[in-house]
C-alpha cells in the first residue's frame, strides 16, 4: 500500500527532531532514507510505526490516516539494527510470535514458521536457541519474523550495519529478493550511500530533520540540489562560475552545458577528471595514494590555489612530483545552482 507523510514534525525532550517532513512512497516501492547519524532518519521510521508520536502532521497508509491507530495495529514492521530477538524464545518461537499475536492456531504457526525459515534459507534451525546462532543467521531470523507479521510497510533501520562486510552483500540481495516477491512497500534507513544507491527505487536524503532531496539514485547522484547532498555522495572540488547562453564560464575553464542562465557551482569529482603525463603540464601531482582497485591522485595547479583529485585506474608511470595536463569529462561535471 502507498504511504504518505504530510508535514510530520516531531519534538523529543524539547528538541525539534523532524521538521515538517513530506514523503510519498508508492505501493511496492523500495526507498531509502539516507543521511548522517543524528539527521532524524531513525526517528522518522519510529514515527511511521507509531512508537514515537508526531507533534504535527499526518501519516496516511493507503489513503487512510494512521494517526489514531496504535503501533500494534499498523502493520508497519521495523527491523532494528540490534536484531531484538526475544532471548527467552527459540528461533521458531521468535518467528511465530507475530502469528500468535494475530491469533493463529499453534499448528498453523509452526507450519508458517518452517515456511519462512525456508525463505530465508535457514531450514533446520527452528529449535535453536537465539543465542546459539551467528550474526548473519540472526539477521535472517529477524527478517523471517518481520515477514511473519505480514507487514504492509517494512521499515529497515540500518539492518546491515552490524554485519561483516562480506555478509552484507548476501543479506542485501536476500532482502531485495524477498521485497520483490512479497511486493512490500519498504523504507530502508541507512547512512551507507552505496547501500542506498544500489538497493533503492528512490532515495530521500535527510539532513537536520529535513528531507533535502527525494529522487531516483541516478538523479540524486548526478543532480544534487545542493552541496550537502553532493558532498555526501562524493566529494570533489567546487568551482564558482556562471552559465550564460548554455555556456559555463569560470576563472579556470569554460564548458558548454545545457542549463538555465545563472550563477552555478561546478563540482569536479575525481571520476570527472582524466590526467595525462605532460612535460609542459600546468598541474603537478602532489600525492599518489593506493586504494586497492585504483589510485587517488592529488594534483595542484602550479602557481595557483586550485586543488583537484583524480582517479587513476591503471598504474601508469605517473609519480609524485610529475607535471601533468588534465582533461574534464563533461558528462560527469555537476552543476549546482547558487
Amino acid at each position, binding site marked *: 500500500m502507498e504511504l504518505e507523510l504530510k508535514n510530520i514534525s516531531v519534538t523529543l525532550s524539547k528538541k525539534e527532531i523532524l521538521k515538517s517532513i513530506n514523503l510519498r512512497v508508492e505501493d511496492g516501492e523500495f526507498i531509502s532514507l539516507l543521511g548522517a547519524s543524528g539527521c532524524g532518519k531513525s526517528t522518522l521510521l519510529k514515527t511511521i510505526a507509531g512508537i514515537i508520536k508526531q507533534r504535527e502532521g499526518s501519516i496516511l497508509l493507503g489513503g487512510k490516516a494512521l494517526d489514531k491507530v*496504535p503501533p500494534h495495529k499498523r502493520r508497519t514492521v521495523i527491523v532494528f539494527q540490534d536484531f531484538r530477538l526475544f532471548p527467552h524464545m527459540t528461533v521458531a518461537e521468535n518467528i511465530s510470535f507475530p502469528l500468535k499475536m494475530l491469533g493463529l492456531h*499453534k499448528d498453523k504457526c509452526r507450519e508458517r514458521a518452517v515456511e519462512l525459515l525456508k525463505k530465508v534459507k535457514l531450514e533446520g534451525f527452528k529449535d535453536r536457541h537465539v543465542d546459539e546462532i551467528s550474526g548473519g543467521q540472526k539477521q535472517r531470523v529477524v527478517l523471517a519474523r518481520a515477514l511473519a507479521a505480514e507487514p504492509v510497510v517494512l521499515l529497515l533501520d540500518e539492518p546491515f550495519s552490524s554485519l561483516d562486510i562480506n555478509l552484507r552483500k548476501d543479506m542485501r540481495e536476500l532482502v531485495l529478493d524477498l521485497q520483490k516477491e512479497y511486493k512490500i512497500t519498504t523504507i530502508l534507513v541507512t547512512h551507507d550511500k552505496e547501500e542506498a544507491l544500489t538497493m533503492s527505487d528512490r532515495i530521500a536524503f535527510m539532513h537536520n530533520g529535513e528531507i533535502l532531496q527525494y529522487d531516483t539514485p541516478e538523479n540524486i547522484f548526478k543532480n544534487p540540489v545542493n552541496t550537502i547532498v553532493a558532498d555526501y555522495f562524493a566529494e570533489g572540488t567546487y568551482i564558482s562560475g556562471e552559465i550564460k547562453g548554455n555556456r559555463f564560464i569560470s576563472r579556470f575553464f569554460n564548458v558548454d552545458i545545457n542549463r538555465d542562465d545563472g550563477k552555478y557551482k561546478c563540482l569536479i569529482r575525481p571520476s570527472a577528471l582524466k590526467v595525462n603525463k605532460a612535460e609542459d603540464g600546468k598541474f603537478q601531482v602532489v600525492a599518489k595514494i593506493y586504494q586497492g582497485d585504483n589510485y587517488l591522485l592529488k594534483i595542484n595547479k602550479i602557481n595557483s590555489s586550485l586543488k583537484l583529485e583524480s582517479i587513476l585506474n591503471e598504474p601508469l608511470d605517473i609519480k609524485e612530483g610529475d607535471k601533468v595536463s588534465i582533461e574534464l569529462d563533461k558528462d560527469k561535471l555537476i552543476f549546482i545552482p547558487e
Partner: protein
Amino acid sequence: MKEPSSNKLLKLFLYITVFAILAPMVIITLWAFTNQWSWPSLLPTSYSLRAIKEIFAPYGNVFPILLSSIFLSLTVALLSAIIAIMAARAVVFYDFFGKDLIDFISMAPNLVPSTVFAMGIHVAFIKMSLANTPLGVIIVNLIYTLPYTINIMKNLTESIGKDLEQQAYVLGASPWKAFLHISFPLLLPGIIASITMAYIISFSQYFVTLLIGGGKVMTFSMIMVPFIAKGDRTLGSAYALVFVLSTLIVFGLINLILKKFQKRKEKYNWN
C-alpha cells in the same frame, strides 16, 4: 605455584565464618530433639520427639497458624512483587510529575525504624478499623518489604529495557501482550527474588505484627517468640526448626511454580 600465605589466612577466616553460621543451626536442631541435656554434657543426654509432637499435637492450633501465617506472608510477598514491578516500570520508562518523589518514598522505610512507624500508625489504624486485622498487618509488612523489592525490580527493568517491547508492538502485540509475553518472562528471576525476599521479611516480623495485629492476628513468630523469651530451649528450638524448614519449603515451591509456569508457557508456544 605455592599458595600465598595471605590466602591461607583468608581461607581460615572463611571456614571459621561458615562454621560460626552453621554451628548454631546444628545446635538448635539437636535441642529440638532433646529430652534431656544436662550440664556439663556437650551432647544431649537423651533424645525425644516430645517437642515436635507437642507443636503438631491435634489439640494445639500451631499447624493452622503456621499455614495462615505462610498465607499472610505469601500475600504480602505477591503484592510487594506486583507493586514493585509497576513502580519500577513507571520510574524506569516514563517521565512524569513527581518521579523523584516516588524514588524517595520507595526507599524511605529504610530510614524510619519499623517500631517508630508502627506506633505512629497504630492509632490511625484503630480509627480506620485496620488494627487487629490481617489487612492492617499485611499493609504494614508490605511497606517494609517495598524498598527491597522495588530495588530488585528497578535494576532488572533497567537492564531489560524497552527495546524488546517496542519490537513486539511493531510485530503486532498490544502493550499488555508485549509485557506478558516478552518482559514478564524476562523479569521472572527478579520476581522470584522479590517474592522470596518479601516473604522472609514478612514471615520474620515480630514487633510490628504484635502491635498492629494486637495479638488477634496470629503469625508463626507470635507463637514462637514467647518460648524464646522464656528461654525454653527445647520448644523454642523446635519452633525455630519448623520456621526455617517451612521457609525453605515455601522457597522451593515458589521456585518450582514460577519455573513451571515458564516451562508451561514454552510448551504452549511450541510442541
